[in-house]
């Protein structure tokens, strides 16, 4: 049990930030992202004993997170929000730094993408290797390269478009 907790702590510390960003990208909602982060890691904890291939643990966690987010969006019939809530907007009631504004804009653009595009681009932004993205998203590597190229273009266009407004 102590060993399991230690392993879990290591995994949590190494992955929680990325998984939070992924959940936030899906929901655009701070509270929902925190809940989904928690649910993802509950599943990780429950199934840690079954996990053997340590090298691909991040892929495994990404897959759990994506499934958790999709289940959330579908079963709750919720849609990702256009505008961002707390994380960014609260961050600064004092004053949004330019950096935070850019992050907020990026999330807004991600929320405009298709559900399947969102996961792929968030993994690309996290610099996850292509074979891992293919495994998480369930798309063959060949198709994935074409798809990534298109999504990158779409996201950049959206970003430049909203930046001008």
């Amino acid at each position, binding site marked *: 049990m102590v060993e399991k907790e230690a392993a879990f702590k290591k995994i949590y510390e190494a992955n*929680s*930030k990325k998984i939070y960003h992924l959940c936030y990208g899906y929901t655009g909602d701070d509270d929902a992202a925190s809940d989904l982060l928690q649910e993802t*890691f509950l599943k990780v904890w*429950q199934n840690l004993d079954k996990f053997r291939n340590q090298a691909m643990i991040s892929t495994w966690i990404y897959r759990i997170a994506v499934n958790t987010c999709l289940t959330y969006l579908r079963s709750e019939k919720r849609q990702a929000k256009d505008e961002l809530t707390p994380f960014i907007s609260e961050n600064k009631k004092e004053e949004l730094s330019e950096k935070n504004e*850019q992050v907020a804009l990026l999330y807004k653009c991600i929320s405009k993408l298709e559900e399947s595009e969102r996961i792929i681009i968030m993994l690309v932004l996290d610099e996850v290797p292509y074979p891992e993205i293919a495994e998480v998203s369930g798309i063959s590597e060949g198709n994935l390269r074409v798809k990534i190229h298109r999504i990158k273009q779409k996201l950049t266009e959206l*970003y430049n478009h909203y*930046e001008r407004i």
Partner: protein
Amino acid sequence: MKEFEHLMSVWQGQPKRDTLSVDEALKQVKKGIRGITNKLYWGIVAMISLIVCAFIITFFFPFRSPATTIGILIILVTMLMYLSLIVRHYHILNKHDLTLNPSDYLHTLKEYQKKRSKLIGWFYYTYVLLISTGLALYFVEVLESAPVYFQLIVYGSTIIWFLFITFYLKPRMFKNEEEKLNLMIDRLIRLQEQFD
């Protein structure tokens, strides 16, 4: 005009948010699980208190008629039956740690759901019948010297209360619990499918 590399640097340079510490996350997960059993636990506490009260009334109040004592004993036995049932339900839910083995927990929830449907069915009607008989016998002596209108109010309100519970409260309460249970079972089934 920004390039994709710029977006990448924005993404990777996101301000670090105060996410939950791992200990806090573990604690919250376990707290959530405790919440499921808490309601039953308080039900057990309330039932034990009622039984103690009934016990005190039976053995420390001087009743003349044996019907009164029989009435209270029927109520007492019925409440003990109910108590043993919810204690068993509590044990069913409490015997597994959800965080350790979801499959066992799923099995547990299904078992609990089956037992609860039994409770909604024949057990509930037996329970109401016995409690009503007990109360009727108890009221014979207690309300003996009360004016008729007061007796009517007591009997009337007791009957209305049972009807209200049976036809209004019970279906809603169990429906609510059933929905929550189904949701939890669905989630665990999905979770299991994900890893099978």
